[in-house]
């Protein structure tokens, strides 16, 4: 008898497909090191960590984030306990014996503990979903998202911590959460999404600017958010995280980057090719942070003529797939749920090298009505 048949099956931490424990790559999505055997099942040792879909692909709405439920339904990235490490103060998930110091390292075996942000997924009903992943080259995930269903739609925020500034992991998380709070409260109360978006960006900016940091490199992050309801799509942004509109009828980018390359191209000072090839291409010209100066978020609103998907993403995705048509080819092909689309986009970024943290939020337009369109 083939011993392999008895090998316990684990789940790929990117796509959730069953893999053998010793598999070095996931056969479904190709993720290297798909199970990370040393990390305990997320969701037990790390209370706010990601939820995996059940094997076999039957998608279920994840449990709400296990803390005080908010109205309206809300889902966002995990909240690590005080200190950086997900298990600070608790026992080490690697050696089991050591206590974890406030800086996230085990006091016995020395290993830095998972923060719970290595891979995070969330869904807002059938309206939208988001995925955030460490990627293949980074040791921490400084991206964050927050996502919530609205009475008649959905809103989401994606933030990308500036890796060179210590504390940016915290900055992106707090910014996303603060902005989402403002968006849900204001839009639920009937405010115009454009005004709500400006308030949300301003609040996120305040929160990040208030974080402790050294004056030469304050914690910082980018910001992109969207409100999708029957009336249309509103996006707001600061920095180079992007929003795209993807639909079978045609796709386009909804944002312009606040970056050096972008401004060179806009001014006609350089060709796009030259600007992107420059070392300074990705230098931000606007961001959230104490050193950012007065905040002037971009806000734009659209009303598409047909159905499609709004994608918010960090540069970990668009660096490898910059063209709306590339993203559409991945997102619109295959199973239709927003979580599936977000996972496919993540997978594409990992397949392209996974050089950076990857965060993708996928929101459906028009928001599905109360009766399910598809009998699942």
């Amino acid at each position, binding site marked *: 008898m083939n011993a392999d048949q008895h090998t316990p099956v684990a789940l790929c931490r990117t796509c959730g497909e069953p893999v053998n424990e010793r598999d070095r790559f996931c056969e479904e999505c190709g993720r290297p090191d798909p199970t990370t055997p040393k990390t305990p099942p997320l969701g037990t040792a790390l209370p706010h960590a990601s939820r995996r879909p059940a094997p076999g692909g039957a998608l279920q709405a994840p449990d709400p984030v296990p803390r005080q439920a908010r109205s309206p339904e809300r889902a966002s990235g995990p909240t690590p306990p005080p200190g950086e490490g997900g298990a600070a103060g608790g026992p080490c998930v690697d050696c089991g014996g050591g206590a974890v110091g406030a800086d996230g*390292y085990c006091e016995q075996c*020395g290993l*830095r503990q998972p923060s719970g942000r290595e891979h995070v997924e969330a869904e807002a009903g059938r309206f939208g979903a988001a995925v955030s992943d460490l990627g293949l080259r980074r*040791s921490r995930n400084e991206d964050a998202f927050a996502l919530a269903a609205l009475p008649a739609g959905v809103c989401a925020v994606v933030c990308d911590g500036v890796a060179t500034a210590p504390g940016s992991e915290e900055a992106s998380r707090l910014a996303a959460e603060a902005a989402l709070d403002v968006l849900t409260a204001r839009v639920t109360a009937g405010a115009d999404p454009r005004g709500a978006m400006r308030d949300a960006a301003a609040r996120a900016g305040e929160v990040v600017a208030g974080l402790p940091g050294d004056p030469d490199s304050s914690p910082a992050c980018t910001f992109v958010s969207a409100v999708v309801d029957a009336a249309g799509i509103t996006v707001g942004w600061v920095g180079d995280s992007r929003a795209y509109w993807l639909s079978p009828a045609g796709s386009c980018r909804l944002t312009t980057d606040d970056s050096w390359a972008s401004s060179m191209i806009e001014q006609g000072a350089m060709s796009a090719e030259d600007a992107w090839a420059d070392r300074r291409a990705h230098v931000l010209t606007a961001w959230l942070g104490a050193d950012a100066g007065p905040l002037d978020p971009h806000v734009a609103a659209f009303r598409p003529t047909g159905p499609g998907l709004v994608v918010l993403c960090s540069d970990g995705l668009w660096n490898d797939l910059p063209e709306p048509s590339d993203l559409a080819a991945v997102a619109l092909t295959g199973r239709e749920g927003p979580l599936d689309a977000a996972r496919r986009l993540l997978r594409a970024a990992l397949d392209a090298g996974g050089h950076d943290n990857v965060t993708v939020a996928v929101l459906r337009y028009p928001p599905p009505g109360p009766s399910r369109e598809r009998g699942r």
Partner: protein
Amino acid sequence: MSDFPEFTVRVDQNPYLPAGGREMHAIVSVEARSSGGPGPVAAAAGRAPAAEIIMIDTSGSMSYRGKMAAAKRAARAAVNVLRDGVHFAVVAGANRPRMVYPQGERLVRADAASRRGAVDAVGRLEAAGGTAIGSWLRLADRLFTGHDAVAEGAVKHAILLTDGKNQHESDEELDAALRLCAGRFLCDARGVGTDWDVAELRKITSALLGGFLDVPDPADLEADFLAMTRAAMGKQVADVALRVWTPQQARLRFIKQMVPAVEDLTGRRSESGAQTGDYPLGAWGEENREYHLCVEVQPGDVGRQMRAAWVKLVAGDQVLASGNVIAEWTDDEARSTRINGRVAHHTGQSELAEAIQQGLEARREGDEDTATARLGRAVVLAREVGNQQISGLLDKVVDVVDPARGTVRLKRDVAKADEMSLDTRSVRTVRTRHGDEAGG
């Protein structure tokens, strides 16, 4: 209690290891700056109480080539820069040590009168007898011990001058004296002339956390003594240790002082906690020192990060500064193969010191092939690390045929002083610029 200087710790390393990689190297730079700000008043206020013993070899051989006269000038100069309030003594060494000043086995407080008294007493020294350095050190230890009750936490420093080998006691007696004195006081040494033994002074000052230099020309002694005494007077904290935490399952392969001179500290460990060991660093004033640390860890998964070592500078229970050595496993070869410039530099300096000492040893034993190979390697390394002083000293011992490939011929006639100088200074390193991250 004095105010400690402000200590800072900086760690230079490439934290990336390839999958399965276990050996992590880092350079730990420690800088101490006076907290009281510039100016003599502030500096004086920050000083620790100090005790200084000056030990002068007065064996018979000191009467030749003006050595005794030079030693007297040097000792007088040292006495004259002792600041008021420092407790001191001058000791004459021969078969047996003898108090020169004050009379009786004790230290005396430095002031105008005691300095004058000591200078006069030094002037009456005469050379006679042999060399038994262990007995000199034991006397110094008794003097310092008697002083301990007066000033707790004092910087206890001795200066030792000799011109000969330790012939009038056994090696065992010297070793026993070193075991007794280690950790009790610090000792810097000078060898004058060419009849002393480099390895012997290296052993003595290494055990007593000091440095030594060769002074081939007695005329240079005075300046040397002045510099040593001034440095001792500038110390602000007596006993500093480097406390190193390493992960369970890890092994600290070595820890070496690299600047100002190569000194392997690995064997000086004393356990100070479940996963920590302390390495005594002696007294500190305003100065910089650098340490090369190598730790072997259990490999983690790609993408994981580990604290491979946590270094803390401690004085008693007080942590003065700390730094982390991090290890992170990656499958990005460009990252894991990058060599930190400062690690490379100090690795080169370590190897340079070793090559010189082995080359000279082989040469003394008549093994010319080994001597040629090792000194040839030293020529290459000295160029690589930019140590021009060593390059110059090597030129006096070998004829360099091809400096890039290390092809050399041993010189037939090498002055004893030049060989001793090369041996002595083989451990003296050159500093790297802090911004220098080059190397890949």
